[in-house]
């Protein structure tokens, strides 16, 4: 169960959400059938809670949103991309610890 701090993005609202965000946005590309993605869920929730107000955290289901997935050339999940001012500024592929994720984000918030 995703935390209420974590937004759910779709092909339809991806651009408007990124443009409208007042903070950098961390997007978690995931799918229901991806074991590691599920393992990453609690880490994403924790980062969203700890950096509330400084970072917007969102998930995008790759099964349901092929357009965004295609635009960013996602060929593996979990992939996390950090957007700032609507532009991708950093990314990490595969499982990552909470500390490592916070370190990655720290330089951009």
């Amino acid at each position, binding site marked *: 169960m995703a935390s209420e701090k974590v937004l759910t993005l779709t092909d339809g609202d991806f651009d408007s959400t990124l443009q409208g965000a007042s903070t950098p946005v961390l997007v978690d590309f995931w*799918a229901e*059938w*991806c*074991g*590691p*993605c*599920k*393992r990453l869920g*609690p*880490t994403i929730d924790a980062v969203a809670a700890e950096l509330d107000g400084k970072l917007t955290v969102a998930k995008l289901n*790759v099964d349901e949103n092929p357009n965004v997935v295609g635009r960013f*050339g*996602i*060929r*593996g*999940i*979990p*992939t996390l991309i950090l957007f700032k001012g609507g532009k991708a500024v950093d*990314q990490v*592929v*595969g*499982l*990552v*610890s*909470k*500390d*490592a994720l916070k370190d990655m984000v720290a330089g951009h918030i």
Partner: protein
Amino acid sequence: MDTLRDVIIIGSGPAGLTAGVYTARANLKPLLIEGVMAGGQLMLTTEVENFPGFRNGIMGPELMAEMRAQAERFGAQIVQGDVTSVDLGSRPFTVTADDTGYRARTLIISTGASARLLGLPAETSLMGHGVSTCATCDGYFFRGRPIAVVGGGDSALEEAIFLTKFASQVTLVHRRQALRASKIMQDKAHANPKIAFAWNSVVQDITDTSKGEVTGMVLRDLLTNELRTIPVDGVFVAIGHTPNTSLFVGQIDLDENGYIKTHDGTRTSVAGVFACGDVQDHKYRQAITAAGTGCMAAIDAERFLES
């Protein structure tokens, strides 16, 4: 600093969770630190057909969820952190995970092994954009596309066979003329019309880093040294594993390949530290052998605490 415990287990694959079940049932109230790859390598597999007790097979992640629940049922305390350092210099041992320090009289190391990579710069920069070490995670992105699997062991063939569900063709790249994999896996692979073989070949390069996606791979024929380019959209690397022992370098005896050396069961070079599963086994590397050594480590730790 946390309270002093009898046992801390690092890692949550079959070895660690079995050690968790046994030490919990022995009333040692184990703390099990899962690590970022919680559940271990079985989380990246699909059907496990050779774990005794499941005659119809069981999904890897489901098996791990069962083992985890079983350890918790008997009172194992499971925490999510990733261990960043250990101090094995004096007892009690100290383990630090996500800025929290834990202390214990005994330590069971079951940190497992991770997929080995080819070591090409292009491999790193294209990871997640066509290069993968996890067929079950990423196969989905290659529906109707040609891909390659690098390797010749059971895991490589399992990945190749799984990936034929999605890919138009799977080229298996192997450095020898014959596979190392078990006969049953070889038969399955040879019978699969979507699998082609590139024998005596190694991957020299993966293209195209300038586009940020995989467009092909350059293979070198080891017999003729000739280079050839094969267009593929994905490269799945399955060339074995390296043990996750960087935390222990200089503190515990490792063999020349980095595996923890064990003697007299699961004892290591440090009294009170025990190792089980793939972190100390490059030979068998099965879920059931990992679970077996996890049980051994739990019993060894229990006896050590009694003595």
